[in-house]
């Protein structure tokens, strides 16, 4: 066991630190924030730190897993903006295109993802299809030079803002195996016949949407992977959505926020920091986050040794789900009446951001597979229990 970095990794860490020192100002005025992030994205792109582990010939950095961890950790500690803004593009669309895409697709799509040019969205869920994704019904017919798509997608995050969608459709319903006959298509959101109807969520914002397809033509060259093999494309693309150590850094930041809040508030006239139950609850969160960090390190070590890591990542996903719900809720509960006041209320603290967080957790908790599905994955794939 050792937690030392190699000389080469130490040099890289210094390079990252120097970069942050030069390019990350102490404070950015609210009005300049957009310009700063744009400029930042350009600079990290020039360093080839966006898509750091993607192959060089695909426009990535060709870097090692370990260095990517260093990169993301340093960025998280310094509270910098992310490495690129095209979240889904970088997380699974890009890796899917790298693995299954044609040369033409790689040239057309990857540079824009790396340049943070626009957002991608993911057309998986349907009105009647959620956790049981492989039963999807949205249909596409092969018309030779194009596919004709008819059907509906639901709960599609970022659809109101996205330029492109990675879409799963059924091209063959004759097979008894529901995993067969699914095809993966890359669809432009301005395609004729495609309609986006935003859905307001309980926080009041409309980030997800219903998407309707009425005779939408998707050219053949936009099919990702083989026809009928879309399930495999999706599974391996989603496998890229690993619970990374950088994600833990995000939770550590939230914990710091919570501790700062505890130091500011009083409970019935006494500092919250002196309340034993508060102290223990926060220590409890800290304990789980530290276990996530170390689980991540252990799984990373396995990956570095070339051993397979797959379903274990559900462990951290479950922890994350619990923490997102409970830490957000705990902040609100600590503040008593103040906690539930939203943005424009005169009684709100910090513009009501705790109230917002206490309701926005489904973004993360339900998005990548509900906790119950993660538990199915663990019990069936790791413990070997029979499928329900």
């Amino acid at each position, binding site marked *: *066991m*050792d*937690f*030392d*970095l190699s000389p080469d*990794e130490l040099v890289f860490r210094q390079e990252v630190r120097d970069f942050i020192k030069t390019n990350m100002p102490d404070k950015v005025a609210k009005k300049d924030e957009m310009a700063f992030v744009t400029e930042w994205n350009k600079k990290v792109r020039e360093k080839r730190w966006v898509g750091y582990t993607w192959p060089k010939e695909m426009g990535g950095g060709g870097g090692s897993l*370990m260095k990517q961890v260093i990169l993301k950790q340093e960025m998280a500690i310094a509270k910098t903006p992310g490495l690129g803004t095209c979240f889904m593009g970088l997380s699974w669309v890009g890796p899917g295109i790298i693995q299954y895409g044609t040369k033409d697709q790689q040239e057309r799509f990857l540079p824009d993802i790396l340049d943070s040019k626009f957002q991608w969205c993911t057309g998986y869920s349907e009105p009647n299809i959620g956790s049981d994704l492989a039963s999807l019904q949205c249909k596409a017919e092969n018309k030779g030079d194009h596919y004709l798509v008819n059907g509906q997608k639901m709960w599609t995050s970022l659809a109101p803002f996205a330029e492109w969608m990675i879409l799963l459709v059924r091209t063959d319903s004759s097979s008894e195996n529901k995993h067969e006959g699914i095809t993966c298509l890359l669809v432009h959101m301005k395609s004729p016949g495609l309609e986006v109807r935003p859905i307001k969520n309980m926080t009041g914002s409309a980030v997800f949407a219903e998407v309707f397809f009425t005779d939408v033509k998707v050219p053949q060259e936009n099919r990702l992977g083989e026809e009928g093999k879309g399930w495999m494309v999706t599974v391996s693309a989603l496998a890229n959505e690993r619970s990374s150590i950088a994600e833990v850094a995000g939770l550590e930041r939230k914990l710091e926020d919570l*501790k700062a809040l*505890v*130091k500011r508030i009083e409970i019935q006239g006494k500092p919250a*920091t002196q309340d*034993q139950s508060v*102290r*223990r609850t*926060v*220590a*409890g969160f*800290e*304990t*789980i986050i*530290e*276990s*996530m960090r*170390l*689980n991540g*390190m*252990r799984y*990373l*070590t*396995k990956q*570095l*040794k070339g051993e397979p890591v797959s379903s*274990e990542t559900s*462990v951290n996903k*479950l*922890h994350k789900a619990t923490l997102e719900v409970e830490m957000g809720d705990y902040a609100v509960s600590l503040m008593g009446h103040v906690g539930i006041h939203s943005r424009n209320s005169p009684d709100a603290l910090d513009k009501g951001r705790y109230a917002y967080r206490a309701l926005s957790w489904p973004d993360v908790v339900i998005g990548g597979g509900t906790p*119950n599905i*993660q*538990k*199915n994955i*663990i*019990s*069936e794939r*790791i*413990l*070997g*229990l*029979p*499928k*329900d």
Partner: protein
Amino acid sequence: MNFGFTEEQELLREQVRRFLDNKCPLTEVRKIAESKAGFSQDLWNEMAELGWLGITVPENYGGLGMGWVDLIVVLEESGRSLFPSPIISHNLAIDALLSAGTEQQKETWLPAMASGQKRGCIAINEKTNWHTPEGIRLQGLQERGLQEKGKQRSNGYSLTGEKHFVSDVDAADFYIVAFRADDKPEDITLAIVDSSASGVKTIMTETFDKTKREGILSLSDVVVPKDQILSEGPAATETLSRLLELGAVAVTAEAVGAAETALNITTEYAKERIQFGAPIGRYQGVKHPLADMYVDIESFKSLAYYAAWAADEVDGSLSRSASIAKAYASDAFVRIGTDSIQLHGAIGYTDEYDIQLFIKRSKWMRPAFGDTHFHQDRIAALSF
């Protein structure tokens, strides 16, 4: 970066695994647990021959010169088998000698410990049932009489009182005893007390986990000569903290193995037990609690490994990492023990079925070296 074990450590794990599978299956564990000694001297001797009793003892004292990362491999596997042995107490005594002992004390005890001839344990707790130095009330009276007579063993202490909840006290040949010296009552003092010293008596007590033994160490005018003082002043408090933290790491490492066995037994049962026409492991009401167990075990396993690594480092990270590991494991292991019984139904409640041994171990482990609340308080003290 490598947060995993070396090939040698994996090999050690296999050896220990094979040893325990062959020599101490649960049927044997039950027999040993019912015996008077509560552990097997024969197996202890065999472990000595294999070198496992001197893992953390430096080579110049006859040990293997390895560290806690190696030791937890043995502890994790011991826990997996609920192997009854005084190995944790033994290693805490070794560490006390290594951290604070004089050269003479080390030479006296360490080679004999590594070879299996002598065993030690730590006697810290009292009826106060505290885990902090504040709970230590045992008084050490300066041996003025000896001093006046001009004997060489001057400035020693005389101890009268009781130490409670002393793990493996009956198996030990010496005890690391914490007390308050009357000439410096604001600090604690740690001393080596030989089990053969005049005035020493042990009284075995009984808990519901018979795979673990403990008792009362009763001291009546027991003379501790100066050369048996291990540590005094603020240094003694530091040594004591380290022992508490190492103890927490050790029982957590055992809990990792024990909880994994509980999960395995319960998972296998869920695959075989048919109700409503299907194995109960098919139902989410059963498989989800099993997944929860897996999540918890994976997590306190990572924490235990890291704390063991910290125990071998000198950067001071042991304190926080040991507390985090124990804070997680104490409550989680009890949840696992409880759910294991519940998922079995009535058969899990029987004496004959093995799963009951694990809930007992989980509840034994909970207060050992501080429960979840105790360690959460230590973690919080670093932030607030």
